[in-house]
């Protein structure tokens, strides 16, 4: 018996607006103290009304464009009614009957081929609060607390077609969407802060009879890798169940990280009745072509096309280009530098080498430092023209991040100009020979390996400020001359 795995995903992405979906509370999710980012509206006080955040619509349209969706000129909000303590109004405002966008897709790269995953719809909705349970062994001592800081946060939900054939593909799709949303600055993509969450549906289909099993929904999994793991686990479980003739019910399952297995959350034999009906407090959302056009024009380049552009325009390796896709800040910096200088290779080496390392070690963003494209170009110029060595360049880099001085100023202050005066270098070399007569004798008797020793000494004496190429040349030439002259 052969089965095909069918997976569909629902991705919730928090929109990077300044305020919440329907009120003016901040939408920055880093309020650690519970219930400090709330107001009458997002806590569902009697008599409040929602006011739609227009920025949220703009970002939803942006995401819809990036995910190749058809944007509906008219969309509207509906109420999804259910009781849960973290849902202050007793209903969630969402888009059920007419979502903002439909019929899109995203292309995933499975290594050997590209695959198109259909997107059924994208809709806007508000987030619920968070429940925290203090469980003390028995029910009567236990307490549940609700934090409404997250209540009313603006979300889009991206619902795929059941086009995904494997947990691996599911992971690739989630990563692709995450990169896109991060790229166009619609969502921070920060999984730890819950800015991106994914529920996955999995079922099996018999290849010959097309018979389908029930659908299992895996919920509340907090990383994409774990979604993949949970799906892999489910795929195996369902296959075994099916082969043994068991019946697969619709159900919702959670993921246990320690046991690396899923566990049942609730059976879903009959679907919940959310009693959807149009939200009377909000007018329809009208998005005209001009508006969409404007957003499309102002939109950031998508990762896929940027990757290709970086590889071809800057003659970059796939891996380097990919790094830039992951770190848009570095990519912007690269392009700024590239617009000022044609030394793409050097710029690339510096950014992905020393600069990235410095930022990582100091846990800083490039924009938080005093470093600039001008400084990097100056630095590269100084090296290219031989004024300083590459090593000196690396040495002064940290200072460039913290000081406002120009590269030349720093070099001058520290007397770091490269010693290119060959007469001076030769003089120093003479001194080294006088200090190390026995080494010199050994060289003369054929121990040519000592060449490195003399180069090293000369570099040391000049504090690394000499051009290694010239040093090597001088040392070699002088030693050979001395040997030949038979002194």
């Amino acid at each position, binding site marked *: 018996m052969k089965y095909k795995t069918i997976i569909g995903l629902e991705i919730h992405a928090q929109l990077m607006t300044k305020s919440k979906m329907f009120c003016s509370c901040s939408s920055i999710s880093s309020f650690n103290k519970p219930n400090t980012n709330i107001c009458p509206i997002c806590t*569902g006080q009697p008599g409040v*009304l929602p006011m739609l955040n227009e920025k949220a619509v703009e970002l939803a349209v942006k995401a819809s464009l990036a995910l190749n969706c058809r944007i509906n000129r008219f969309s509207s909000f509906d109420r999804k*009614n259910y009781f849960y303590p973290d849902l202050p109004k007793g209903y969630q405002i969402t888009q059920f009957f007419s979502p903002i966008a439909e019929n899109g897709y995203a292309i995933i790269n499975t290594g050997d081929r590209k695959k198109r995953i259909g997107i059924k719809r994208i809709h806007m909705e508000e987030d619920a609060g968070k429940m925290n349970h203090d469980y003390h062994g028995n029910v009567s001592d236990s307490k549940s607390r609700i934090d409404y800081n997250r209540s009313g946060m603006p979300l889009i939900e991206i619902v795929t077609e059941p086009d995904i054939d494997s947990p691996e593909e599911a992971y690739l799709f989630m990563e692709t969407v995450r990169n896109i949303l991060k790229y166009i600055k619609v969502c921070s993509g920060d999984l730890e802060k819950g800015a991106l969450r994914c529920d996955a549906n999995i079922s099996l289909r018999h290849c010959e009879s097309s018979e389908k099993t029930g659908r299992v929904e895996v919920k509340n999994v907090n990383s994409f890798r774990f979604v993949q793991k949970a799906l892999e686990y489910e795929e195996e479980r369902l296959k075994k169940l099916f082969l043994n003739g068991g019946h697969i019910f619709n159900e919702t399952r959670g993921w246990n990280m320690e046991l690396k297995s899923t566990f049942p959350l609730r059976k879903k034999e009959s679907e919940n009745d959310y009693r959807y009906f149009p939200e009377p407090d909000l007018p329809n959302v009208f998005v005209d072509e001009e508006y969409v056009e404007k957003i499309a024009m102002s939109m950031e380049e998508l990762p896929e096309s940027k990757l290709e552009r970086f590889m071809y325009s800057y003659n970059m390796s796939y891996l380097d280009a990919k790094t830039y896709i992951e770190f848009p800040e570095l990519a912007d910096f690269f392009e700024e530098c590239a617009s000022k200088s044609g030394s793409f290779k050097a710029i690339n080496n510096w950014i992905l080498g020393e600069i990235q390392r410095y930022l990582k070690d100091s846990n800083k963003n490039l924009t938080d430092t005093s470093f600039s494209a001008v400084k990097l170009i100056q630095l590269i110029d100084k090296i290219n023209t031989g004024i300083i060595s590459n090593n000196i360049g690396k040495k002064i880099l940290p200072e460039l991040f913290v000081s406002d001085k120009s590269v030349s100023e720093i070099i001058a202050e520290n007397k770091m100009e490269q010693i290119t005066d060959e007469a001076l270098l030769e003089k120093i070399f003479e001194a080294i020979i006088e200090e190390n007569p026995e080494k010199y004798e050994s060289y003369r008797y054929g121990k040519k390996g000592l060449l490195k020793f003399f180069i090293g000494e000369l570099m040391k004496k000049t504090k690394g400020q000499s051009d290694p190429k010239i040093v090597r040349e001088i040392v070699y030439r002088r030693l050979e001359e001395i040997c030949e002259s038979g002194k």
Partner: protein
Amino acid sequence: MIVYFAVLGVVFLELWMYTAEELSQLIKEKRIDQKKVIETYLKRIKMYDDTIRSFVQIKEDYKIQDGDFSENSFPVPFSLKDNIMALGFRTTCASKALWNYQATYDSTVNGKLKNADAILIGKNNMDEFAMGSSTENSAFFPTKNPWDFQRIPGGSSGGSAAAVAAGLIPFSLGSDTGGSVRLPASFCGVVGFKPTYGLVSRYGLVAFSSSMDQIGPICRSVRDAALITEKICGFDGYDSTCVKKRTSLISGIERNTKPLKCAVIKEYLDNTDHDIKSLFDDNLKLLKWAGIEFDTVSFEKHDSVLPVYHIISNSEASSNLARYDGVKYGLRIEENSIERMNMSSRNKGFGEEVKKRIISGVFSTSMTNYREYYLNAEKMRQKINIQLNEILKEYDVIISPTSPQKQYKMGETTDPMKYYLLDNHTVIANLCGFPAISIPMGFTGDLPQGLQIIGRKFEDSLVLNVARTVEKKIGVFEDGIYPFPHLEASVK
């Protein structure tokens, strides 16, 4: 205005008999003291409200502003129906579910009146969550009709109407979802105006049926209704159904209306109590002499109006009232699971009428019934809207008695279908968002009855203009005031 005050000069009026407009003028001109006005009303509330029971909260430690009033000031005392938020007061909606709810913010209307130096001194009784037409559904106590203590004041803004009628407050703001401002105004012999849907912000009005709720004034003259509405209307960043529109209501109110064409809906008169009908006919005659034209027209969809109204309002209410779950505020009955706590709190918190409507609304919006009930009702609402707009294309306004029936005795009506009929003539304005006003048109026996004028959407000024014209022409507005009930005789 000048003519008006000349009339006042002849009749001896006590302070509490003045309209809000007159009081505001007198206070602003420093001819009477604002504090004295407020004290007068508070004294009357103390004297009569133990009997009438129109207030659920009174604030005697009000704060008045020192110094001069601006041109836009309206420094009169007023009250709010207890489903409108005001900081410093509880907002109970006359429900156990919110018995202890202290307002956490100000409604837009209260904010606007506060800015105009008006002084809020109390909150009025109502049918629980505005569901009802008699104010018998208050979880606290029923309010009595000041004209006959045995009878209902109408509802759901019965407390507001009874208080204004008894001279306990110059004006009050009510809410009108199916006639809740106009019906009690009619039953208590005062003026009640429901503006066009979207003219007045609903922010801070506890929602019953979001697509129909509208705040409106209950007061003692059409001029007051225009003035007060002008004070509270206007675009609001907190209500997206509130429109951006400049509204001038008082400036043209006295102008002579061009020859008016009014439609009288035949089916409504067929359904109206005999005494009310003959009073209405008498008034029509009076208005005909004054040159106003009337035609009887047929409104075929009239049978669908109440079912459509109930399906839509109950559906919206079932969702709007979901937030009273005992979690965040209001009544909580402790249980050992969240689900049971929710259920017990709601079961104890809501009264019978509210539960009935929530259940009906849940039914109409549930997956299996949604198309047949909610969606069909919305479609029918569209058809009703089209038909009434057809009538209003040909006629300036639609005129009818406000209520098809007289004031019931308290507890008399046990048949809900009969009870719901009280809204029969008023709900069309809510279904279609039309402006509508009820003004007193005389008495059947000792009981005042109201006349309703409905106009086109956003033609509030025309409706008020017509109402003012009618007010001047019909008999009850003698000496420039509507009569007061004789409370001194009835209350010891």
